[in-house]
C-alpha cells in the first residue's frame, strides 16, 4: 500500500515538473567537469551565449559516475527537457539505448555518432584543424623537430596527433614529430605538472614548437613552453592570450557553436550527422592580436591555401579514426 502510494506520488511529481520545465533545453557535461578550461567549458560558453541572447533558461548536469549517465538522460527526458545536449563520446552507448524510449525528445551528442531518428550527432574534423596547426608549426620550426603532447591516450587524441603530423610533414618532409601522451587514466586531462615535464623532455630532444592536445594539462605545457622560450599551440578554446606572443596559434574546436546552435534549434533540432569541419567553422586555427606577430604572411598564405585545398578535395587529410593508422608517423 505504502509502496503504491509513493509510486503514485512520484508519478504526480514527475507530471508536475514536466509541465513546469516544458521545452527548456538541457546540457550534460562529461566526467571532466564543467570548468575544465577546455572541452566541457566550451560547451558551457555556448550555453551561456544562448542565455545571454535569448534570456532563456536551461538545465545542466555534471556526471559523477558511469552508472549515472543513463539515470541523468532518462530523468531529463522524463522531466520534459528538449533538446538534451551531451558532451563526450562516452554517452554514445547509453544514448543508443535511451533515445528510442523518448521519441518526442531531441538529443544532441558531441564527438560521437549515434544512429537514431531523434539524435543529432555532432562530429568535428579535428584532423583538418590540426593539419593547419601542423603547417604553421612546420613553418615556424627552425630545428625541424616539433612536439605533440596528448592528454589521455585514446583514439580521439590520435586523430589530433595524426592531422598535426601530416600538416607538419607537408612542410618539412624530413622533420620529425615527437609524440608523448600524459597518461592512461582520466587524470591525464588535468595534470599540468606532468605536462610541463613532458614539455621539458621534448625541448631537450630539440622540439621548438609543441602542440598541446591535453585539456587542462595543456595549461602546464603552454606555461613551460613560454618559460623555456619556445612556441606552443593551444587546443579547443582560443588559448593565444594565455601567453601573448608565445603561443603560435590555437586549434579551436567550436563546441560552443554546436551547443549554441542546438539550443537555438530547440525542439526542431535536425537529426542526423552534423559534421563541423573547416567550411562549417567547426575547427580552425585562431589568429588574433596575441599571435599576430608570430604569424607571417607566408604562413597565413599557406594556411589559406591548405584550407582551400581541403575544401576542394585536393588536399586529403587522413582521419585516424577510419582505420586506426596514421600515414605520417
Amino acid at each position, binding site marked *: 500500500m505504502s*509502496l503504491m502510494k*509513493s*509510486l503514485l506520488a*512520484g508519478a504526480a511529481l514527475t507530471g508536475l515538473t514536466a509541465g513546469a520545465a516544458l521545452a527548456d533545453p538541457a546540457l550534460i557535461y562529461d*566526467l571532466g*567537469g564543467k570548468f575544465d578550461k577546455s572541452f566541457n567549458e566550451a560547451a558551457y560558453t555556448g550555453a551561456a551565449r544562448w542565455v545571454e541572447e535569448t534570456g532563456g533558461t536551461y538545465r545542466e*548536469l*555534471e556526471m*559523477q*559516475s*558511469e*552508472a*549515472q549517465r*543513463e*539515470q*541523468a538522460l*532518462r*530523468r531529463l527526458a522524463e522531466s520534459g527537457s528538449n533538446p538534451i545536449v551531451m558532451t563526450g*563520446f*562516452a554517452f*554514445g*552507448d547509453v544514448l543508443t539505448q535511451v533515445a528510442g524510449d523518448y521519441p518526442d525528445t531531441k538529443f544532441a551528442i558531441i*564527438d*560521437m555518432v549515434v544512429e537514431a531518428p531523434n539524435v543529432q550527432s555532432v562530429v568535428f574534423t579535428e584532423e583538418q584543424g590540426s593539419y593547419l596547426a601542423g603547417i604553421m608549426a612546420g613553418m615556424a620550426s627552425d630545428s625541424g623537430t616539433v612536439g605533440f603532447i596528448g592528454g*589521455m*591516450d*585514446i*583514439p*580521439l587524441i590520435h586523430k589530433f596527433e595524426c592531422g598535426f603530423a601530416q600538416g607538419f610533414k607537408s612542410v618539412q618532409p624530413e622533420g620529425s614529430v615527437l609524440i608523448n601522451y600524459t597518461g*592512461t*587514466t*582520466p587524470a591525464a586531462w588535468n595534470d599540468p605538472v606532468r605536462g610541463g615535464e613532458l614539455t621539458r623532455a621534448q625541448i631537450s630532444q630539440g622540439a621548438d614548437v609543441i602542440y598541446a592536445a591535453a585539456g587542462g594539462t595543456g595549461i602546464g605545457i603552454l606555461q613551460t613552453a613560454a618559460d623555456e622560450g619556445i612556441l606552443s599551440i593551444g587546443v579547443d578554446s582560443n588559448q593565444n592570450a594565455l601567453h601573448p606572443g608565445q603561443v603560435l596559434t590555437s586549434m579551436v574546436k567550436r563546441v560552443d557553436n554546436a551547443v549554441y546552435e542546438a539550443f537555438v534549434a530547440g525542439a526542431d533540432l535536425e537529426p542526423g550527422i552534423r559534421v563541423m569541419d573547416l567550411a562549417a567553422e567547426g575547427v580552425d586555427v585562431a589568429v588574433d592580436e596575441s599571435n599576430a606577430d608570430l604569424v607571417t604572411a607566408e604562413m597565413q598564405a599557406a594556411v589559406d591555401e591548405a584550407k582551400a585545398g581541403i575544401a576542394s578535395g585536393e588536399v586529403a587529410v587522413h582521419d585516424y*579514426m*577510419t*582505420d*586506426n593508422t596514421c600515414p605520417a608517423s
Partner: protein
Amino acid sequence: MDKMPKWADVILTPLISLILAMGISALVILAIGESPWMALTTMVEGALGSSYGWGFTLYYATNFVFTGLAVMVAYHASLFNIGGEGQAAMGGLGVALVLLYLPLPHWAIALPVAMVGAAAFGAAWAFLPAFLQAKRGSHIVITTIMFNFIAAALLNYVLVNQLRPVGSMDPASARFPEATNLPALTDIAAAMGFDWGRNSPVNVTFLVALAACFLIWVLIWRTRLGYQIRAFGRSEPGAVYAGINPVTITVIAMLISGGLAGMMAINNVMGEAERLVLNAVEGAGFIGIAVALMGRNHPLGILLAALLFGFLYQGGGELALWTSIPRELIIVIQALVILFTGALDNMVRMPLERLFLTMRRTSRGAVK
C-alpha cells in the same frame, strides 16, 4: 574486561563519528550559501526515498562489499592491500574476455564462469606484489599501488588497441552477448509481480555479494586457513613457531584478496555496463579501504559500511545532479565521513570509553 559494551563499540562510535562528519559538512554547505537541510533531504530522498534510489544505492554498495572484503582478508594477514582499484580493473578485463570469447548460452552459466574469470584476473594481479612481499620484503603498500597504474595502462592498451571495435570513438569493448546479461533485481521483482526499482542497475550480483560476506566470515573465523591467516597477521614469529609458512600464507591471503576485488567486475562490468569501459572501477577500490576500516574488518560491518557509502555515493550524485551544490562538495562530504569514521576514530572512542567507565563506576557505587 571490555572497556565498554560491544554495541557501543560497533554501533555508537561510528554513529557519533557520522553525526560529527555531517555536522561539519552542514557548516561547509552553509558557508557556500546553501541550505544543509535541503542537501540532507535531497540525499536521503535520492538514495533511499524510492525503490529507484535504493536500486542505485544497493548497486554501489555491491561494489564496495567486494572491495571492502578484499581489504579485510588482506588486513587479517596484516597486509594492507591498496591495490583493489587495479585488481578490480583487471577483474573487469577477465570478465570481458570470458564473455566476449567463450560461447556462453545463458546467464546462469555465464555468471559462474565470469566469476572465475574475474577472480582469476584479480588474483593474478595481486600475485606479484604478494610474492615480492613474501620473498623480498618489498612493501605491499608500495607495490600494490604501483600495480594500480600498471593495470590502468594495460587496460588502456587492451581497450584502445585490441578490444575496441574499429571506428568506435569510445575506448570500450563491444557489448557482451545478450544471453549473458545478468538479470537486474527489478526484472526479478517484476517476475514476482511487483514494480521495484525500474531502470536501476542493481542486479543479482548483490545476492552474490551477500553470499560472499557469509563465506568470508566462514573462511576467516571457521576454517583452518582463516586461523592461519589471522595467526600470521597477529604475530609472524608466533605463526612461524606454530608451523605456518609465512610465504604461503602471504600469497594465499593476497590471492583471495585480489580475487574478491576482481569479483567486483561481475557487478559493474557484467551487470551494469554490459561491456568493458575504461573507467569502470571509479575509485571503488579505494573506497573499499574506508569500508573495511569502518566495518572493523568484519563482513557484517563491511556490509553496513558499504550500504552507508552506497548511500553517500548515490545521495551525493543526486545532490550534484539536481541542486546547485557543486560536485566537489560531495567529495568533501565523503572525505569528512572517511576522516571521522576511519582516521579520527579514537577521537570519539576514547571519550566514549571514559564515559562508560565512569558510568560503570557510578552504577557500581550505587549498588553498593
